[in-house]
């Protein structure tokens, strides 16, 4: 979903897609690491 301004008289400077990807990767990858580790721990509830 993109965002927009009501003021169209100013020059628009689109956010670089690479910056978006890097920013999201920096937070999602550690979160995935934590999720995987926690799921492995939680699985002991059903196997331990």
């Amino acid at each position: 979903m993109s965002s927009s301004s009501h003021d169209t008289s100013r020059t628009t400077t689109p956010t670089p897609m690479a910056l978006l990807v890097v920013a999201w990767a920096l937070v999602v990858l550690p979160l995935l690491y934590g999720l995987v580790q926690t799921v492995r721990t939680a699985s002991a509830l059903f196997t331990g």
Partner: protein
Amino acid sequence: MAVPSFLARERIVAKPGFNRWLIPPAALAVHLCIGQVYATSVYKAALVADFESSLTAIGAIFSIAIVMLGLSAAVFGTWVDRNGPRAAMFTAACFWSVGFLVAALGISTNQLWLVYLGYGVLGGIGLGIGYISPVSTLIKWFPDRPGLATGMAIMGFGGGALIASPLSRQLLGTYDSGYDGTAATTASGSAVALLFVTLGLVYLVFMMFGAAIIRVPADDWAPAGFDLSAVKKKSLVTSNSVSAANSIKTPQFWLLWIVLFCNVTAGIGILEQASPMIQDFFRDGETSLVTVAAAGGFVGLLSLFNMAGRFVWSSTSDLIGRKAIYMVYLGVGLLLYVALATVGSSAVWLFVLLAAVIISFYGGGFSTAPAYLRDLFGTFQVGAIHGRLLTAWSAAGVAGPLIVNGVLDTQGTPGELVAGDYRIALFIMVGLLAIGFVANLLIKPVATKWHEPNTETALTPERSAAR
């Protein structure tokens, strides 16, 4: 208090064309770091051994941090709203990181008071400022989906512990070859000190990244296709503004304070005791049907539901409304607590299911609160108002464990308790949830006398900076 120009709000006003989806990762960069506070159990035993101290004395480090979180969020909330999210994130990063470094010094020199000062006081201030720093900015960037936006950030706070716990175990294993990450071994104090230095530096870089990419929307900005009149039609949603100073004079603020206090106290009742509780519920004589490893798995499962609830329920509140979702948290939560107290010990799967849904409501209560505040008081000083509301969390952090531990102390000794011994504590939580449910029902729109003059503009954020 003025801030250096590179941190000033005026320097981070987004230019036309800026993509608002860069804001959630900026917020997450802060919340994923400060969420470490829920991972303190990893090195608790190591600190007890290193300081030759008690669990209570070491547990006080965490308690001080949570109390400071509430106090600093309340005290610095207005400063955060006035100076903007970059200044707040920068300050939070400094306090949080320096807190780790001072605590590391305390561990290395065997001075517990330095750990209290570092992690507890300085780190706690970083926690409070960091927790509220991106919230009002997210609400302003996502006026169409405030629950989703704050849910994403506050989910990060839950996710922070999910990352920090296994990461800390791995780092402790690296710094102390005798530690294998299980309860059978304890890491050395020097390994914990090194862990604190590592975490302090990593979190500093990560949070500074968030501070660097955060932006505030321009005065006239609104998302494409956003219809302000559609939002105003929803009950309880105001387009007016109430200042932080005036908000605490309204019954709505205190009713919501009671709602949050009751919801958090009830949730902590389970979280605090999760591991021994599931073993006690299925105790047969001296042994339990649930092993220590399985109880650890139960704690992990609750962490997952705590985090998921923050995102799922807060996002759902955008569809059904804030008051309705809190009726679910408190009303359905109440019924689930009754079920837990009465039939929870009949099957492990039932116990796990009930506890997991209750904890998801606990998480949802945290992440939906900022959006509820936005609905009631507008965006003008929502960060500062949120900061004041978080004192309910501090109070609940003291009350929850006090209630549960106080009741269990009268019922028997740890390791010999059974399901029936938890009944009184659980029914106290049911009573608290009933109080919270009534408080939520009583919440009505804020009286017009508290509105700021000439503010049909709660969705134009920059005016607030000039006040």
